[in-house]
């Protein structure tokens, strides 16, 4: 498993890069805010660099496109997650 939030070329050189900007999400310390955004409910389409935290329903954003097996961290609810593929979509599964 790897963590695309850590910008390591070894894992992410062939992935699309995304410029993350502040989305107004204010539930984590300032330096981490660009990595999250509020989910707008059903119909809110996620980009290739985004995955929904199933615990607190916040969208986690990466600076690179995500792939199954990637590990992500949801700081608003402090949950560790693994990205998986389900019905052709990327989903996040909780790691206990």
């Amino acid at each position, binding site marked *: 498993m790897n963590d695309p939030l850590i910008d390591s070329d070894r894992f992410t050189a062939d992935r699309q890069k995304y410029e993350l900007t502040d989305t107004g999400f204010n539930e984590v*310390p300032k330096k981490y805010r660009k990595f999250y955004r509020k989910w707008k409910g059903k119909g809110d389409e996620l980009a290739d660099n985004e995955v929904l935290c199933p*615990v607190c329903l916040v969208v986690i954003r990466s600076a690179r496109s995500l792939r199954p097996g990637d590990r992500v961290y949801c700081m*608003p609810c402090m949950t560790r997650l693994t990205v998986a593929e389900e019905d052709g979509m990327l989903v996040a599964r*909780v790691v*206990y």
Partner: protein
Amino acid sequence: MADFLSGYSIQSWLESCPQGYLEDTDYGHGAGEKEPEEMLGNDTFREDAIRTTVQLVVGERAALAASSGLVNAAPDDSSKMFLATQTLDEARHVEIFTQRLLDLGVRKDDLDSTISRYANPNLVKFAEVLLEKVDKKDFIAGVVGQNIVLEGMAFSVFEMMHATNDGTNPKFAHTLSGTIADERRHVGFGENRIGSLIKEHPEKKAEIQKMQQDMTYHMLATFADSFKANSDVVEEAHSQSSPDAKAAVYHGVDLNKADASEMEAVLSDTVLGEFKTRLGRIGLEYLSPAA
């Protein structure tokens, strides 16, 4: 496990919460924000707001008693630290919702009698089921009851109330935003901490599932009572709302157009769906109160 628990520090809480989204707030909302005049000037709407806010105070008082009681039952220091921050969060919620009762015109001398008059008996029983586990210092059952069942319910209720108030009552919507942010941490702690503990104590499952079943019964009865009590208010609010009002969408339902029974249905379905999913993730089976 040590790394996972290390996130539950007072420092993290300080940076996210008081120095983050609560900075510059006044009882959870922007300084100077007030309840809308249209609501304060309408006795029906004002009484409905008081009745609803009383349920929030009752629920948060239970959460305060439970989280503070669980501090001494926690098996490790990191869980104690997290529950200490949660205790302050819950105390804040009690304070801000009590302040809202005062803002709605309840006199300080009448607070206790107002809360007694409007508190839903089923919500009181819901809290009693939880607090019985806390009193026995049953950490696993207490955290499931508090951080998954109670907080899971609160999370959905607050989200729905936020959708309703976002366009019409910015003061209350801002108050709710802060509590929703707090609830994210609380449900996260519940799932993450119990997800690992339940694997070590499978013998606890049946008792915890029975507690969830009892709490769910009282929760659904509370919803039924509450929506029945305000069905006339919902109709009056719809009749007075502007046809150009922005839709208040919650899980596909426009709350500005839905009647009380539709609101009850969407809230119950959402909360029960979340219970099933959350309990399933940590290895517990959801038991329907009808079973």
